[in-house]
């Protein structure tokens, strides 16, 4: 496989992994399982409600930084970094 093709595969793997976390933090914890999670409390917050109005957003911020950092590493590893 060419260098570019394997870079692209590695990139897709990274994106897919990030999107799994994205989906869990918002759609799963914040909506689909919110009612179940609401049984657990985080101070005054019900946990499902907390994910939908706070937790999901914090996860998104962490994810985009992680992605930017890892993607830059991949650029180096595969020697496709811009000048």
């Amino acid at each position, binding site marked *: 496989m060419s260098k570019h093709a394997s870079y692209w595969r590695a990139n897709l793997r990274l994106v897919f992994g990030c*999107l799994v976390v994205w989906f869990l933090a918002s759609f799963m914890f914040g*909506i689909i399982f919110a009612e179940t999670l*609401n049984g657990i409390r985080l101070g005054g917050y*019900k946990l499902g409600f907390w994910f939908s109005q706070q937790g999901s957003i914090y996860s998104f911020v962490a994810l985009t930084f992680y992605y*930017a950092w890892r993607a830059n590493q991949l*650029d180096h590893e595969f020697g496709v970094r811009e000048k």
Partner: protein
Amino acid sequence: MELKTLTYLVVGATFALYIGIAVWARAKTTSDFYVAGKGIPPVLNGMATAADWMSAASFIGMAGLIAFYGYGGSVFLMGWTGGYVLLAMLLAPYLRKYGKFTVPEFIGDRYYSNSARILAVICLIIASVTYVIGQMKGIGVAFSRFLEVEYANGLYIGMGVVFIYAVLGGMKGITYTQIAQYCVLIFAYTVPAVFISLHLTGNPIPQLGLGSTMSDGSGVYLLDKLDSTLKGLGFPAYTTNTRISTLNMVVYTMSLMIGTAGLPHVIMRFFTVPRVRDARASAAWALVFIATLYTVAPAVGAMARMNLMDTIQPSAETSLSYAERPQWFKNWEKTGLLKFEDKNGDGKIQYVADKEKNEMVKVDRDIMVLANPEIAQLPNWVVALVVAGGLAAALSTAAGLLLAIASSISHDLLKGIFMPHISEKSELMYSRVSMAGAIAVAGYLGIHPPDFAAGTVALAFGLAASSIFPALMMGIFSKKMNKEGAMAGMLAGIGITLFYVFQHKGIFFIADWKYLEGMGTNWFLGIEPNAFGAIGAVFNFAVAFVVVRFTDAPPEHIQHMVEEIRIPAGGTEAVEH
């Protein structure tokens, strides 16, 4: 000092600042006008993107809707932040590598077709104009309150201000102006939230205050108290009030997320960074600045509802007497956005869920954020600051959107297709004329907007989600996608979304022009029109992949171009400015 004078002063001072910056960095060439020379560092670009992004819908509209939807309002919070994750990973780096000016330009090149480019321009204009309607609603509300006039008059004044503001400068002016606007709007949003959180819970950090106990010594959590107050008056509990259904919430959130990643004025910002890795970093920084407001918003919503109930109807037995209503109540009555009707003639305000008995016959959701500091009896300068912040949010986004509309008409349609030999000067002239046209149309439709500010903007997102996002995604991730597939997909996606939205809201949102009303509301799986964009996007993808099987593969050089944009190395240099 009197509130009105103070508001004039604060709003005047912030405007002087923006205009000063715009004049200082006045756009000179067309390249500057559109993308500000590609030389802005990621943190600053992120901040400007955040200001561009957070509009009247985020600042004025969203917390108000959350205050009344409760948990159901989460769709806006997750949708308008989660979309950035998609933008950062699926679009921004590749579009930067491609390195041209506009979204239709990419679609036209990638699908080797001027028809595809024209189709993208049409989709983009429909979505952006809808978005501007939402901004106009917000601007109209802010001006009507601040000048104490009817909503419609506030809207006309707002149109004039947007016209002067957006048509004057280009993106370069706007980039630095937007950094100033971000600072103004985030300060204006957080200051009242901190005061109110401190007052209600004793915790100055709104994100923590929302999860704390009331400071009245009762030891009850704020959210629990809100739930029980509302339930006592027949309203659904705040923290568990699902918006229509779980499915509707999933689809709504998805629609806002992919709409975020499909809106041209946000995508355009990623053309302004020097390198691919700066595009990644810019998206991440933008999200930090956006999240700052978005994690405060739920506290603003819940606390505004708490204070509103406490003022008017703290429990089923105690109602406020109309004669003793506070000043803010009177001021908002003047705008026509707040209405009381004494149904049982007892001179008191009954504010309950039962429609027969409820006497607060109109509480426009979009007044909540602006009224919030007054309801909480904060000092006048805070109230003035919120008006200035709301206007900053609305103006910055309106300007960015108008620029996207203008560039798609003058750059893509005229220069790109119909009048290739047009001079730079007349290109700029045409782009200013299209801005003026868009302001007029959006202002006219904004007199009777299809929904509250945030709801109207949600419709715009649905339209972008169903048309632009899939075409961009497939353009990058599917080498075999051809022009027939992409165009059929865009047509099918936006077509079906417009059909569903217009059926509910009227053609071009004119309520008299509804059709097929016998179908009932939300007839498709109980999904509301604001949320339908995600369904439209699924349609878009499905149609595209079916069509591509029966038509020719894209030419060799296009497949090569797709391989090129996937790899960061070897890109074009950023334009110096």
